[in-house]
């Protein structure tokens, strides 16, 4: 069974890019969310193997979404997608329980490296 990934980003463009990279490698994109609140809801419904999470989003931020998800699902595997210059936010997200991060703009190989590492974590 393919690994199921939930992609969270308010920009459709970014969701498409990440989705293309992962599909090519045989991942299944089980859902896409455009906000933090949506992400939390969809996680509950789908319980994916992995989440890619944008940091700055309308209504609930990616960091708050991580907190909400980890609270209910402590073993959730979340990969942050950050822009340059958001260092302290990334640190905060990892503190909240995100497992790794990639920085936009990114190389496909770099995204896959992080995805695989996060998935391999016990």
């Amino acid at each position: 069974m393919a690994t199921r990934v939930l992609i969270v980003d308010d920009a459709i463009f970014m969701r498409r890019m990440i989705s293309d990279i992962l599909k090519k490698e045989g991942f299944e994109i089980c859902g896409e969310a455009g906000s933090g609140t949506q992400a939390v809801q969809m996680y509950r419904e789908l319980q994916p193997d992995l989440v890619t999470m944008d940091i700055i989003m309308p209504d609930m931020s990616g960091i708050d979404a991580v907190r909400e998800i980890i609270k209910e699902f402590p073993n959730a595997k979340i990969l942050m997608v950050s822009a340059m210059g958001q260092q302290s936010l990334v640190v905060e997200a990892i503190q909240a329980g995100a497992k790794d991060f990639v920085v936009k703009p990114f190389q496909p190989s770099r995204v896959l490296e992080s995805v695989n590492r996060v998935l391999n974590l016990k």
Partner: protein
Amino acid sequence: MNSNYEELFISEAEDYLEQISNSILKLEKDMNDTEAINSIFRGMHTLKGMAASMGYSSITKISHAMEDIMDLIRNSKLNITVDLIDLLLKGTDYLTSLVNKREIDENIIKSFLKVIESIKTGVETSKKIIETEKVEEKKENEKNITLKVIFADDVVLKSARAYVVIKSLQDKNIFINTEPDFDSIMKEKFGNEININIKNVKEIAPLIDDIKSIPEIKDVVVKDEAKSDNDVVIEKKDIKVSLERLDNLQNYIAELVIERGRLQQIAYSIQNEDLINSLNSASKTISAIQDEIMKIRMVPVGQVFDRYPRFMRDLSNRLNKKIKFEIKGSDIELDRAILNALADPLLHLLKNAVDHGIETPDERIKNKKSPEGYILLETKRVKNGVLIIVSDDGKGLDKNKIISKAISLNLISEDESTRMSDHEVFSLILNSGFSTKEEVTDISGRGVGVDAVYNVLKHIGGTLEISSQTGRGTTFILKVPLTLAIIKALLVNVGSEVYIIPLTHIVETIRINMDEIYTIMGKEVFILREGIVPLIRLADIFKSEYNREKENFQIVLVEVDESLYGILVENFVEQSEVVVKPLKGMLAGIPGLAGVTILNNGMPSFIVDVPGIVTISKVG
């Protein structure tokens, strides 16, 4: 480890070992020779400290074991026998071999340590249980592992990346701390790598693989704490000259300077133009050589201080204390001999700060302080010398404890203690054998600390000041001269005496008339460019006879602590370079004197301690 210290360590350790074996031989001849016993003890203690800071574990262990034995002997808990002397000599041989990078079979060392342990247990049965517990606890701590994590060259958001690594170790409950410290890492204040201290794990390889799997991590290596004493590579960029050679050279130059002075006197007295000219150009060359030698002797303090952070880190880990250690002014230069002499005393002070000064994180939180203690080693240039300041924000010195200890040691009476200022109380810890911390620890030893520091400072012509506030911390200010030996000075006379005033304090010289001297609040002053300047009659300070009623006098204007003072003298003799010799014996304690020198005419003359006479004039 920096090769600078290696050289330093070897040469100094050799000296200590030589001194130790001489003392052991003395002890063999006279088993009651307490001076020899103390000398061996102190030698071992110092060697232990030096080796520990270099990370030489075998040398540390052996010297520590031998120090323990000497302590027992010192306290008459162990009798000296011929066998024991043999054992001490054997240990010294092992140490000599290790210091000189000769390998010794580990089993030999082990069995040697075992013998010592059995001697100790023979006398220390009652303490045995507690001590073994302590030792084991320590061992547990000592097994910490340091991982060097190297980041990829193209790493983005370096701090966050480092945090991913730290977090993964935190999740495994093995994270201890980092170097640089966590805050610096979060502020991207690090290069391409960080060191992370973690608790011991059974299998390190999977852990390393795990960290390496984190993106943008180039490599992870285990730093070997207990690196073998043998794998030493000494870099050779410059040639190394032993300090002894430099000392010799400087002494010869000093003789030459004195001889030059005599020659000049002769040349002027016979008024031979050619001789005077030739002497003048020779003089210039002599001065140039002197300057060069001075420069060769000057090294940045960092050369020695750079080894402290590592030591402080290990030490605070071992004691479970959180400490931020900072070094400021490490590019300031100091005479190599002075710096060498200060290396160990400073280590003592830093050890004390960690061990006795900084509280445990729990205690600190309880006292509403940040759980992380702060220790600063700061070097500052000041006129005529360098200040080295060791300060901590720990619990401060315990005045009452010092007083009661001083009373029990008969240093002061109870009555006296009530009248003492804080400063006077703190100065009590400079007395030999003074230590308020009762138990013996591996780190600070037996209170050979502060008094030993003070002795070294006195020897090199420095001073030590202590200030402390309960709950706020302690500060040690070491004032050391820039260099030893030759100073430029003005020779002045009062009555029949010639005194020497170092040029470093002198602002200018002026001439004043008797009627320009006024008295304000019982003190003599004169007006200089609309400012009032206190007058100090040099003759009054040293109780020399002179004609007070002369019409005019010479004034040497000096600056001390940013204030001007006028030193009144009768005449200026000449400006000259003098060789400073320390005051010894009865003269050593006279206030206002910084040293003595031999004048060109062969007569001794005193060098004035300018800040000292300013203080005297204020009190008197």
